[in-house]
């Protein structure tokens, strides 16, 4: 159950079907599914063995434009790993406006390949791939603000 392959498949299932939640439990044989819906649902039945994840989602529609990381969508793509931003800042895909991008879709990257720069407090931080594989997707635009944990690239690991 806990091997990455099954996990990926479960996640794909969720994304494809707009599930917002999926709890499983082998021992006591339990399944709990939730789908996206205008009005979120919290079921806190006193007896229920409190499925935390089930109750937790502060489901209420964000009053703000929901700037939260789009991690789940990204992870969705079967077999791809997200390359996430380690900090808040402005993301640059090329060393300078006229220069070529650090990496493009199809490029191979290794652990210390610089994939982008993130400017934080006037400092340009070189972001390395920290993994080896092939860039499959670029998720942000040049000069776009990124948050902590926000996926920047999708990489197909070797």
């Amino acid at each position: 159950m806990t091997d990455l392959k099954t996990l990926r498949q479960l996640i794909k299932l969720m994304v494809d079907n707009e599930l917002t939640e999926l709890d499983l439990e082998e021992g006591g044989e339990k399944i709990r599914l939730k789908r996206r819906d205008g009005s979120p649902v919290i079921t806190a039945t006193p007896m229920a063995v409190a499925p935390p994840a089930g109750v937790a989602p502060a489901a209420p529609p964000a009053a703000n434009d929901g700037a939260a990381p789009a991690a789940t969508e990204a992870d969705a793509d079967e077999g791809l790993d997200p390359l996430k931003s380690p900090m808040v800042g402005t993301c640059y895909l090329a060393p300078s406006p006229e220069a070529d991008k650090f990496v493009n879709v199809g490029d191979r990257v290794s652990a210390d390949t610089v994939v982008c720069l993130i400017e934080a407090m006037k400092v340009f931080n070189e972001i390395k791939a920290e993994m080896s594989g092939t860039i499959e997707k670029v998720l942000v635009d040049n000069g776009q603000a990124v948050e902590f944990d926000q996926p920047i690239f999708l990489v197909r690991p070797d």
Partner: protein
Amino acid sequence: MFKRILIANRGEIAVRIIRAARELGVESVAVYSTADAESKHVRIADRAICIGPPVATESYLNIPRIISAAEVANVDAIHPGYGFLAENAHFAEVCRSCNIEFIGPSVESMRTLGDKVACKQLAIKHKVPTAAGSKEGVTEEADAVKLAKDIGYPVMIKAAAGGGGRGMRVANNDMSLRSGLNAARAEAEAAFGDGTVYIEKFIDKAQHVEVQILGDTHGNIVHLFERDCTMQRRKQKLIEEAPCPKITNDQRKKVCQAAVRLCKAAGYYSAGTVEFLMDKDKQFYLMEVNTRVQVEHPVTEAITGIDIVKNQIRVAAGEKLPFSQKDVKINGHAIEARINAEDPERDFAPCAGVVEEFFPPGGFGVRLDTHCHSGYRVPPNYDSMIAKLIVHRPDREQAIDTLHEALREFHVAPTKTTIPLHQRLMKNGHFRRNDVDINFVERLLAG
């Protein structure tokens, strides 16, 4: 006025500040760690930015990440709330060096009042009552012993950089003083990177009385009267009330004016609190100055009708205080009970996890400040306060009755909270007669 501000905090105070900003027509930008992705301050802010993982040093305490978020969101100012970076002068300096206003006092006054020795010297200079003791840091044991002999035992050994009771020690004789001195130095060095300690007379059977200060950058500075925060456990306030039920108007006037003198002398502006210990004879002794908004500010807002957080934002934007001292009046009595997710059965161990049922009280004279709701998950990473229950009534007795009823109605499950303890305290004769000192709650719990 600012167009947009960032709130460098979480929980109920972040919610409180966002409300104040929006009511002033100022856009609010929340920052959050991954542990708070679904917390209320994230939902009600105009924008929210994830700045790091749950561990505070990588998020709410991380200056570069917060400044980056501020730049990304292009805000005019940052409100630090309380705790985290609120009293960090360096953070205030960084903000201003980045042309982001820090919603708080000047860096200089933060430094002066933050150093307890410097603060005490300033106090003495301006006739603000302090406990007898060393005028500056004490390093030599011999000096310490001599000093102790002069002022008489018991004496208190305090860390100059300390605060909130951290790094304090009581010595009853030369021997305990000697050992205490070294231990305190080491502890202070470790805790604050500054081993300076000083010695002063220990105040027995003391009550905690603090004065709320509010000032602008045009030299206007007023007090909003005092609060009594004697009900504490392990130096953590449990119940706060305003006004202090034990002092006369003359004593009130004297201590409040002393607090104003001290802050004026330090060139202070924004909101601040001057904390005193009061002994059995109603003598006051300066403890420390908190250069930020206080958890318990709502009791002062209740009795004065003045919105402290809105005024912090106004004065940070360069506006003048919209009122003067003579406009500030006391109306009725207010009490706040801090509701913490802690298990009194298990020595108040924090209770993280999902609050499945959170049914708060309400009605006339009842205010609730919280970021919690049914289904909220209390993260294990931060302090355990989940709500502040504040009542405002014409007099103290009615306030206690109302608070007792509100606590009785307050249903939180399955999370354990301090609600039962507060209910017990509301019924306690010593509390009702205000016959308590800062160690009362611990004695009560001990047996």
